[in-house]
């Protein structure tokens, strides 16, 4: 019976070989990604100069990527959001922190780590690290096991607990929505980078508090900034090598 099944399964591939139907192959014409290493710097001082409750970056990101507004803490989906300073940098918290930091909102999103734990745990490789540094997400392959969410120490990933489409306030046709049952997170706007645009959050920030650039380019603004001020990262002792740098 096993033999017959095997023979049966070989019919289609066998027919394709015999009838010489060649499926067309896409031609490799890669965009210029090689050699780049994307990173983001967040200038908290500039961010805090904005008016109270500024959400420009969050709204821009969620609009461009059709991120649903579920409205409950239980099922919310968010690619970029703010948390309080003490929670963003718990290792920097002590009894005598400066008042200007205490309780202030810090923008957080996927750190696009260089040694991402989430990538290790995915059973289907639906998330992987691209050579330009972006930790990619393939919504076609995700089986929704949520192991990557268990791996991420920063809580950057969200799961679609129900069909997101009814909850999308304004649909962007340029980007697909997702189905229920898959995990999603910030992707450094890789589809915009492919068109030569900056990430949506960077473009939307009126204070110019978000800086995006190529770490491999010694002349980039990114590198210049990192040489300048004191940099904080979220929990670097975990060895994830995050690519988001915070300047206070």
């Amino acid at each position, binding site marked *: 019976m096993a033999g017959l099944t095997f023979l049966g399964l070989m019919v289609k591939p066998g027919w394709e070989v015999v009838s010489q139907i060649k499926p*067309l192959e*896409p031609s*490799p014409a890669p965009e210029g*990604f090689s050699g780049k290493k994307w990173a983001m710097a967040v200038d908290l001082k500039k961010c805090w100069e904005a008016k109270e409750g500024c959400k420009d970056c969050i709204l821009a990101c969620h609009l461009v990527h059709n991120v649903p507004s579920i409205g409950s803490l239980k099922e919310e989906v968010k690619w970029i959001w703010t948390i309080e300073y003490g929670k963003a940098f718990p290792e920097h918290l002590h009894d005598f922190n400066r008042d200007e930091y205490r309780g202030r909102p810090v923008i957080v999103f996927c750190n696009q780590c260089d040694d991402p734990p989430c990538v290790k745990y995915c059973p289907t490789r639906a998330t*992987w690290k691209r050579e330009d540094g972006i930790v*990619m997400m393939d919504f*076609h392959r995700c089986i929704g096991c949520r192991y990557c969410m268990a791996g991420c120490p920063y809580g950057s990933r969200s799961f679609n607990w129900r069909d997101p489409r009814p909850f999308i306030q304004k649909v962007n046709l*340029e980007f*697909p929505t997702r189905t229920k049952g898959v995990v999603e997170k910030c992707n450094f706007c890789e589809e915009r980078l492919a068109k030569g645009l900056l990430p949506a959050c960077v473009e939307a920030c009126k204070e110019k508090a978000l800086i995006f650039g190529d770490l491999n380019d010694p002349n980039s603004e990114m590198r210049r900034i990192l040489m300048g001020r004191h940099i904080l990262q979220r929990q670097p002792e975990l060895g994830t090598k995050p690519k988001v740098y915070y300047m206070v």
Partner: protein
Amino acid sequence: MTFFDGRKIIPGLLFFVGLVTYPIWYNTLSGKATSVPKLEIPKDKKECIEPKNIIRVHHKEILEDWRTSVVRNGMRVYQASNQKKYTMSLNRTCMECHKDKTKFCDRCHTYMGVTNKCWDCHLYPQELEKGAK
């Protein structure tokens, strides 16, 4: 030696055969079998990315290859057999011309009983106009 009760068995057999072959004779008589789905072809464009006979058969594989190429390999430019370059995108290339999937894609797919999950995530240009927010 058993007798068979012809009066009960033969009509029953005919009924069974009729039931089993229902799809064949119903579709032939009602004309559905010979009807070919009518696709709404874009009026202004003359050609697709590939010739009709190839794209008709291979569009599924082409789209799957595009998906792998764009999402997993980051490569977005497709060189067609007519040497023209196209962006590998369902929305930005295919749906740019075939704006409404219900008048194009669905026609054949419904006829053939083919289901695909593309539209669970991908939106088509006319979808917004139809009031899907």
